[in-house]
Structures are given as C-alpha cells and as structure tokens.
C-alpha cells in the first residue's frame, strides 16, 4: 500500500492550492487555486472511500459554486475597478492573525497528543460494510449513501431542501428587479442616498 505517499502528495497539493487561493493578487487566480484545491479534495475523498461525495464535490463545488464566483467577477469587473487597489490588511494585523492561528494549531497539537478518544466498538458504530471503492453498496457508494439519505437521515435531507429554498428566495429579493420609483430622477436620488449611507458608515 502506498497510502502514505498518496496522502503526502494530496496534502501538499491541498495546502499549496489553499495558500495560492488566499495570496493571489486577482480574484480569478484565486478561483483557479480553489479549483485545484477542490480537485485535490475530491481525490482525498476517494482515498477515504467516499466516492459519492467525491463526485458531489466536483459537481457542486467546481461545477456550480466556482462558476458563480467567475460570473460575479466577470459582472463586477466590466469597465470599472470595483475592488480596492489598496494594500491588504496584512501589515496591520499580521501579528494578531499569526497569534490566533498559532494558538489554534497549538491547541490542536496538544489535543492530538494528549486526548484519549476511545471510539465505540465497530460493531456498534458501523452502519455499512467497508469494501473496494467502486463496488456496489459498500461504504460510501451511491447505493449506501442513498439508502441512508432516504431512510434514517431523511430529516437532514428535508432541512437541506428548506435551506436551499430560503436561499433562492433571498437571492431573488437581493438582486431581483427593484420596484420602480415614481420617476427616474427620484430613483437616482434614492440610489445616491443609499450610496452615501453605505460609504458614510466607514468614516464614523
């Protein structure tokens, strides 16, 4: 088994693409970094026998969410420079940010080396049979996942549907056509007032 080697390669890919995502100068480069990250993560899921989730990761994240990001970048970047060209916050907050991250990692290392997590016996916990990735009805396959989703875990599934419906309504309300004001002139006044209110908030 070369599981350790596979994990090492994937870990390096995941961390490198994550660092690239947050450090790239342009949002489009960040999207590319995130795409690489999601692809490596899908491969990681495959090594964890989660073949259905690996497919979902590629379809939902790489296929839907990232395209949404690309659309918004394209929409906002047409002709104007919408994003701040000023420096990032790094110089101002480098010390507190590094402290927060280091303390969190320190806690984790301490927990990992000192915790005594005793997992329940596999016969109690296991809900499915472990088998080679790709076989039918083994742990993580579509059949296994679907059976759990539509029987024992049907409540989370319904909640998911509710969340998506609320999100759709929210997005339509946020970006849909506004009700027209009495005249174009009045509409321009309202827009100007809203813009000034938004920008004034930052100087308080």
């Amino acid at each position: 088994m070369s599981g350790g080697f596979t994990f090492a390669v994937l870990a390096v890919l995941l961390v490198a693409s994550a660092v690239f995502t947050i450090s790239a100068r342009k949002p489009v480069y960040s999207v590319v970094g995130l795409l690489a990250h999601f692809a490596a993560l899908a491969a990681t899921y495959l090594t964890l026998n989660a073949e259905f989730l690996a497919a979902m990761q590629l379809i939902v994240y790489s296929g839907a969410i990232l395209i949404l990001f690309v659309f918004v970048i394209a929409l906002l970047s047409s002709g104007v420079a919408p994003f701040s060209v000023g420096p990032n916050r790094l110089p101002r907050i480098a010390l507190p940010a590094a402290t927060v991250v280091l303390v969190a990692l320190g806690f984790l290392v301490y927990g990992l080396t000192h915790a005594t997590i005793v997992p329940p016996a596999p016969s109690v916990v296991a809900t499915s049979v472990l088998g080679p990735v790709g076989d039918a009805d083994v742990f993580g396959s579509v059949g296994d996942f679907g059976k759990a989703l539509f029987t024992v875990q049907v409540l989370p599934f319904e909640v998911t549907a509710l969340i998506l419906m609320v999100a759709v309504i929210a997005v339509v309300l946020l970006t849909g056509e506004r009700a027209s004001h009495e005249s174009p002139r009045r509409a321009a006044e309202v827009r100007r007032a809203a813009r000034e209110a938004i920008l004034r908030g930052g100087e308080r």
Partner: protein
Amino acid sequence: MSDAFSATNYVTLSAVIFSIGVLGVLVRRNPLVMLMSIELMFNAANLLLVAFARQWVNNVGHIFAFLVITVAAAEAAIGLAIVVAVFRTAQYVDVDDVAAMKG
C-alpha cells in the same frame, strides 16, 4: 480492516487548511476572496467529517458533509448576491468601507 485506519493525519491537514482559511478572511479586503476563504474552511470541516466517517465506517458523516456542501452553496449564493447588491448601489466593493450596518 477499519482498525488500521487513523484519522490523525487528516485532522492535522484539516486544521492547517482551516487556519489558512481564517488567515484569508482576516487578511484580504476583497469580499470575493474572503468568501473563497470561507469555502476553504467549509471544506476543512468536510474533510474532518469524511475522515471520521471512514474511521468508524459510519456514513452519517457523509450525509452531514453533503449537508455542509448544500449550506456552502446557499452561503456562496447569498454572499455573492450581497456583493452584487452593494456594488449596484455604491459602484465600489471594499469590505472596510461598507459599514452602513455597523452597530
């Protein structure tokens, strides 16, 4: 078969990725990159769920990772809608200046 598996490596990897996401939210001023950093954190949590599901051969972790993916999709849609709405009114998107709802 499941006894040989240990989730420790995956926990560490997930923590490192989560920290990178936190750093991205703290450091960047571009709301789109901040949203992407939040996605990174979602994915770190997902990796944990899947790793522990594998350790205990229990597919509840997969179900909840799936739930997190849908929540992340909803979050991205709403976050991007807010960015677009702010841009429409202010013609400008900088998270430090958009403070109309500051308490």
